[in-house]
């Protein structure tokens, strides 16, 4: 829910509730006030009757009006004075209307009379109705005004916020554009803006530092490995070796090679994860798959593995290096975990690339499959191959999935719709 909607909803709800309570209180207050008014009119009438009786010694001559009536009844006992709610018969329409009556008494020449003054409350009720309607109209108008003012004022006030939000959404580390300052007269937004700018700058600095670190680490690690490798190359030129010596040398070569590959894999992974490889070129995945299969020609023949390929053209714009790594990783996995006389099948169309292989191994543990340094005991790889593949897929918005069906392992890359 948008802030504006939420805010409007709460204010309108609360205002309406308050107005409702206020209206009820208002109604009763007005009614009470007007009742007092009517009671006063009745008292005035009472006084008039008494004054008249005192002055003239007779009961006043009364005639009923549309709203008021006075009745005299001769009584023997003294009467109580009281106000009561009653009904009044309209003279004209003969309708019963709510009314207010005053029971009182008067003494004329020693005789007790009960006096009942009745006054219709029709006018009062009409008045209340009018007042209530006017108030209701005012409330509705007020609410509407509140609603629209909120809308206009809030959306204006929050404009810088949405601008900052837009910039944050468009923020891209690899691009060199920086976040622009959004001017605003509101302190909170100015603070938010400067915080966002500060953060963006810091993130960019960190990113640059990381990039530099990756390269420096590469340099610092590769140099000693380089020296070892070149010294070994020089050393083997020096003369004859015994079997033991050449076995030791071969082990050293193998270890240096392994170290190099591990280092390269880790650096590649770091680079992919930090989006340091941004080059893009036109390439056709079909050609890359065919090249990879050729590259593995010897081990494929040696293991008597059958290749089934259904390859369509799949042009895309991506980093050649990363696509080569991705395809080579999948195919070398399919080869490495195959069985003698087994098969590898590759299928490529514009939607997906699927690499399937036969194997003696059971279904792989899908939970740890793409984690770093997860490898089977028999594997000679670094345990980074699938992690790198997954990262490459993530980078391009592809989906990399693993399936195990009828003893066949499938790795399926589903391409993003735009790629």
């Amino acid at each position, binding site marked *: 829910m948008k802030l504006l909607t939420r805010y409007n909803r709460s204010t309108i709800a609360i205002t309406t509730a308050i107005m409702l309570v206020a209206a009820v209180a208002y109604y009763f207050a007005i009614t009470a006030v007007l009742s007092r008014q009517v009671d006063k009119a009745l008292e005035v009438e009472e006084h008039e009757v008494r004054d008249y009786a005192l002055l003239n010694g007779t009961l006043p001559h009364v005639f009923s009006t549309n709203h008021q009536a006075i009745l005299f009844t001769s009584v023997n006992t003294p009467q109580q004075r009281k106000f009561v709610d009653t009904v009044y018969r309209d003279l004209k329409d003969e309708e019963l209307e709510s009314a207010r009556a005053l029971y009182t008494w008067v003494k004329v020449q020693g005789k007790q009379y009960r006096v009942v003054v009745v006054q219709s409350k029709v006018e009062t009720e009409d008045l209340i109705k009018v007042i209530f309607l006017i108030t209701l109209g005012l409330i509705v108008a007020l609410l509407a005004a509140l609603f629209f003012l909120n809308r206009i004022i809030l959306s204006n006030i929050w404009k810088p916020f949405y601008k900052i939000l837009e910039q944050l959404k468009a923020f891209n580390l690899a691009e060199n554009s920086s976040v622009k300052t959004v001017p605003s007269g509101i302190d909170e937004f100015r603070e938010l803006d400067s915080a966002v700018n500060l953060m963006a700058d810091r993130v960019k600095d960190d990113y640059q530092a990381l990039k530099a670190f990756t390269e420096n680490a590469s340099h610092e690690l590769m140099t000693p490995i380089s020296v070892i490798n*070149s010294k070994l190359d020089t050393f083997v030129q020096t003369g004859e070796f015994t079997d033991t010596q050449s076995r030791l040398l071969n082990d050293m070569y193998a270890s240096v090679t392994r170290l190099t590959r591990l280092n390269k894999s880790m650096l590649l992974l770091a680079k992919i994860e930090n989006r340091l490889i941004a080059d893009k070129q036109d390439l056709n995945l079909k050609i890359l798959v065919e090249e990879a299969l050729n590259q593995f020609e010897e081990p494929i023949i040696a293991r008597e593995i059958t290749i089934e390929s259904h390859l369509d053209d799949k042009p895309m714009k991506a980093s050649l290096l990363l696509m080569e790594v991705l395809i080579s990783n999948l195919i070398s996995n399919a080869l490495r975990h195959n069985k003698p006389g087994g098969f590898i099948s590759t299928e490529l169309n514009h939607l997906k690339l699927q690499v399937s292989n036969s194997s003696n191994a059971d279904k792989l543990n899908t939970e740890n499959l793409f984690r770093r340094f997860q490898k089977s005991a028999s594997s000679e790889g670094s345990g980074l191959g699938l992690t790198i593949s997954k990262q490459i897929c993530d980078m391009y918005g592809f989906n990399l999935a693993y399936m195990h069906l009828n003893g066949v392992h499938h790795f399926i890359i589903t391409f993003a719709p735009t790629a």
Partner: protein
Amino acid sequence: MKLLVIEDEAGLRESMEEYFNEEGSICETAFDFSSAMGKVNLYRYDCIVLDITLPDGSGLDILKHLKHEQHTDGILIISAKNSLDDRLNGLDLGADDYLTKPFHLSELRARVAAIVRRKSFDGNNHLRFKEIDIELSAKEVQINDVAIKLTPKEYALLLYFLANKGKVVSKNAIAEHLWGDSVDMADNFDFIYSHIKNLRKKMLEAGGNDYIQAAYGMGYKFTTA
């Protein structure tokens, strides 16, 4: 062949110098930016092996200087910074090839040889060694004027051996040269053995000499004797 190796790491520089210094080749070295600039301003080389990261400057500046002066020395960049920017930068600036550390000296030798060949023969080039004659542009090999048919990997292997005549080339170096990073299985070495067996057989059948010797379990050596 006259070479200049510009490399600040003493261990690596000495190895390269020792590996390159052979009959008929002269290998000079420079260990920093200023001494390198001094040498490239005074002498011309068939190929300059250039490390990008130097203690007092960037190898790319030396490259720019050479191109600005329109010197035609071949240039092979070696760098531990396997960053794509550097690679593209270097090649855009006119370097002939780019090699990432660590590398085998035999690989370096093969790349340098390829650059020198390209520079000196302008594409229409033959590589001759005794009775072996290689037409490089067509990738055709003749022995005693008899054409022999080699697979792409056998051809690459023969060129690799010729660039490293008289040196022991380790199986690791051969595997990396032929298959790159992608195949890292121990049975690579069996494939090397079968490729070498086939290459040797084809050369012998065409009446050539047997130059390829196994070198004490380490690898192979292309003898010049």
